[in-house]
C-alpha cells in the first residue's frame, strides 16, 4: 500500500513506535511534509506527537517503518549528523556559556571560521531583536528573551528543517501571541520547513499551513486550519478543535449529501453525513456555536429549527455566549456577535434555533 507521497521533504512511511515492545505509542504513521511547509502536530498529552518529533530529531528510533528526509532514509543516522534545528520546551540553553557562545556552538562544530561565525551570530541575534544581549548569560534573561535565543540558536546554522517542541508553553499569554507571530514570520521569510508540536489549538490554528491532529498514536486528521475547524472528519477532531456542540442520535436515512438523524429526544434533523454510512448507526452530530442562529430574520425560510430553552446568558464583550437546553442536552452553547440589532436572551425563555445543513455534521459516535 503506497501511502505517504514520496515527493515530500519529510516523509513518515508506516512508522510505528513502541517503548516496551507491547503497546504502540505511534501506530502506523504516514505523513508527508512539503518543503517550506509549517506543519503543526497537535494533540492531547500521550497522543504520540512528541514521540514523532523525537524520532525525527533522532533521539528515539522508530520500531518499524521509515522516516525520510529529502528522499533519504534517516533511521540509521545519529542525531548529530542530521542537521536539523530544534527548539526545546525548556529552551535547553547552555547555562555556562554566554548567549553569543550558545549561538556560536553549532557553528564551531561545523568548523566555520571565526569572522564568518561572528557575522552569522550577529545576524541571528538581530533577527530575533536580541542584538544587544550577546554577552549575557541565559540566566540573566527573561523567559521570553531565552525563548528568542533558543529560536536564534536553532536557526543560526541555517538548517532546512526546524523542529519545535512546545516552545511557547512557559510564556504568558501576551508574549505567547507575540512569539507565535514572530515564529511564523521567520519561518516564512527564511523558507524553512517547520514541524511544530503543541497541545494548544489556538497556536496550531494561527501558525500553521497544515495541522496534524494526533490521538491514540494516529493522525486523526491532517488539514489546513480552516478545513480542520469547519470540516472535522471525526468526532475527536470536532471536540478537540474549538468549541463544539454535540447531539447524539441514530441515522434514519442517508440520501446523497444529506442524512436524516433521529435525535435521542425524538426530534429529526438534517445533517451532512461525514463518516457514517448506513441507517441504524449511532452518530454524534456536531455544530459549531457560532453557526447556530436564533434570529428568525436571518434563518433560511426552509431552515430546520429546534426548540431550545435558555439556561444562562453570559456577556463577554465582543460576543454573547448563551447556554441552552436542546434535545435533552444542557450544554448546548451558542455564540453571537455583539451587533446593534442582536437581541439579548434571558434565562427561562424558549427560542427556536436553526442552522445550515452543511454546518451540521454527522460524525462517528
Amino acid at each position, binding site marked *: 500500500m503506497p501511502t505517504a507521497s514520496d515527493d515530500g521533504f519529510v516523509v513518515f512511511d508506516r512508522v510505528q513506535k513502541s517503548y516496551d515492545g507491547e503497546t504502540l505509542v505511534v501506530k502506523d504513521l504516514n505523513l508527508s511534509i512539503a518543503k517550506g511547509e509549517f506543519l503543526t502536530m497537535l494533540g492531547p498529552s500521550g497522543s504520540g506527537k512528541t514521540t514523532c518529533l523525537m524520532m525525527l*530529531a*533522532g*533521539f528515539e528510533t522508530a520500531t518499524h517503518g521509515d522516516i525520510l528526509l529529502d528522499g533519504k532514509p534517516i533511521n540509521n543516522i*545519529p*542525531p*548529530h*549528523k*542530521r*542537521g*536539523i*534545528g*530544534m527548539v*526545546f*520546551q*525548556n*529552551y*535547553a*540553553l*547552555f*547555562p*555556562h556559556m554566554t548567549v553569543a557562545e550558545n549561538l556560536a*556552538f*553549532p557553528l564551531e*562544530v*561545523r568548523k566555520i571560521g571565526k569572522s564568518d561565525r561572528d557575522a552569522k551570530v550577529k545576524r541571528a541575534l538581530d533577527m530575533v531583536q536580541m542584538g544587544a544581549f550577546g554577552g549575557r*548569560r*541565559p*540566566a540573566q534573561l527573561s523567559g521570553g528573551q*531565552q525563548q528568542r535565543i533558543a529560536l536564534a*540558536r536553532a536557526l543560526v*546554522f541555517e538548517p532546512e528543517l526546524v523542529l519545535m517542541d512546545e516552545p511557547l508553553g*512557559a510564556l504568558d499569554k501576551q508574549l505567547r501571541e507575540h512569539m507565535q507571530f514572530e515564529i511564523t514570520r521567520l519561518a516564512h521569510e527564511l523558507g524553512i520547513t517547520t514541524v511544530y508540536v503543541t497541545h494548544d489549538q489556538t497556536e496550531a490554528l494561527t501558525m500553521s499551513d497544515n495541522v496534524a491532529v494526533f490521538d491514540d498514536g494516529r493522525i486523526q486528521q491532517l488539514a489546513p486550519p480552516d478545513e480542520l475547524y469547519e470540516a472535522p472528519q471525526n468526532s475527536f477532531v470536532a471536540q478537540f478543535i474549538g468549541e463544539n456542540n454535540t447531539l447524539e442520535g441514530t441515522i434514519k436515512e442517508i440520501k446523497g449529501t444529506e442524512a436524516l438523524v433521529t435525535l435521542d429526544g425524538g426530534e429529526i434533523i438534517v445533517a451532512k453525513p461525514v463518516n457514517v454510512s448506513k441507517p441504524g448507526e449511532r452518530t454524534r452530530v456536531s455544530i459549531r456555536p457560532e453557526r447556530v442562529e436564533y434570529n428568525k430574520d436571518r434563518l433560511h425560510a426552509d431552515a430546520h429549527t429546534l426548540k431550545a430553552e435558555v439556561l444562562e446568558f453570559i456577556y463577554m464583550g465582543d460576543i454573547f455566549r448563551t447556554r441552552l437546553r436542546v434535545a435533552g442536552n444542557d450544554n448546548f452553547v451558542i455564540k453571537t456577535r455583539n451587533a446593534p440589532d442582536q437581541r439579548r436572551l434571558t434565562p427561562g425563555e424558549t427560542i427556536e434555533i436553526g442552522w445550515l445543513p452543511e454546518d451540521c455534521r454527522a460524525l462517528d459516535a
Partner: protein
Amino acid sequence: MDLPPYATTGQRVWFYTFRVICGLIFFFLIAPIVVIMPLSFSSQDFFTFTPEMLAFEAEGYSLKHYKDLMTSPDWQKAMSNSIKIAPMATIISVSLGTLAAIGLSQSHVPFRRAIMAILISPMIVPLIISAAGMYFFYSRIGLQGTYLGVVLAHAALGIPFVIITVTATLVGFDKSLTRAAANMGASPVRTFFKVQMPLILPGVISGGLFAFITSFDEVVVVLFVGSAGQKTLPWQMFTGLREQISPTILAVATILVVISIGLLTVVELLRRRSERLRGLSPG
C-alpha cells in the same frame, strides 16, 4: 539566634547548656589536632610543652623538626612516594568514577543499583579486609610491592567518592542540554567535554579532592600492597611512631592538616560555585 523575650527559666537554662555542649563537642574534635601544631615547633625532641614554650620565649621554639623532615632521606623518599602515588591514583579515580557515574545515571542501564553498590563497597567494607584481599589478589598477578599496585589500590578506594559526588551533580543536570548539543551537530565526545563536563565539573573536582586525600592519608592498604620501595608519608609516620618517637611526625602532621584544610576550602568554594551555576540554569 537570640532568646525570645517570652522564654521560660527552663528554656533559658537549656539555651546556655546547649551552647556549652556544642562547645565541648567542638573542643573534643579539634583539640587533638590543634595541640600538635605548636608542639611541632618545639626545640626539644620530646612530645611535651617545655616551660620555655609555655612562656612564649623564642628559644623554646625552632624549625628543627621541619629541617629534619626536609633533610632525612627516609622522609624525603616517603614524601616523593606520596606525591607520585596520590595524583596518579586521583587521575584514575576521577576518570573511571566520572564515567561510571554518568553511565549509571542512564535509566536504561540494567542492574544499575547492584553495580553502584559494588563500586561503592570499598567505602563500606572495613579497610583491613579490602587490604588483605588486595594483598592476596595482587600477589597472584604480580602487582604486590609495585607502584602500579599501590596506585590501583588507592584508585579503587577513591572511586566511590568520585561516583557519589558526580552522581549528586548529575541529578540536577538537564538531559535536554546534551540533546540540544547533539541536535546542533556535536558528536557525543564533543558534547561530553563542551557541555556536560563544564556543568558537572564541581562534582568531579570535589570527588577528585576526596580521592586525593584518601590516597595521601591512607596507611593500611599501602602496608599490605606496597613494599619498602613504596613507603608513603602515612606509612613513614606509622613506623616513626613505633620506632623513634620523633617530633618530625608532628611537623608532617601539621603540614598534612594544612593541606587538608586547603583542599576542603577548595571543595567548599566549588560547592558554592556549583550552587550558583545551578541557580543560573534556565527553566
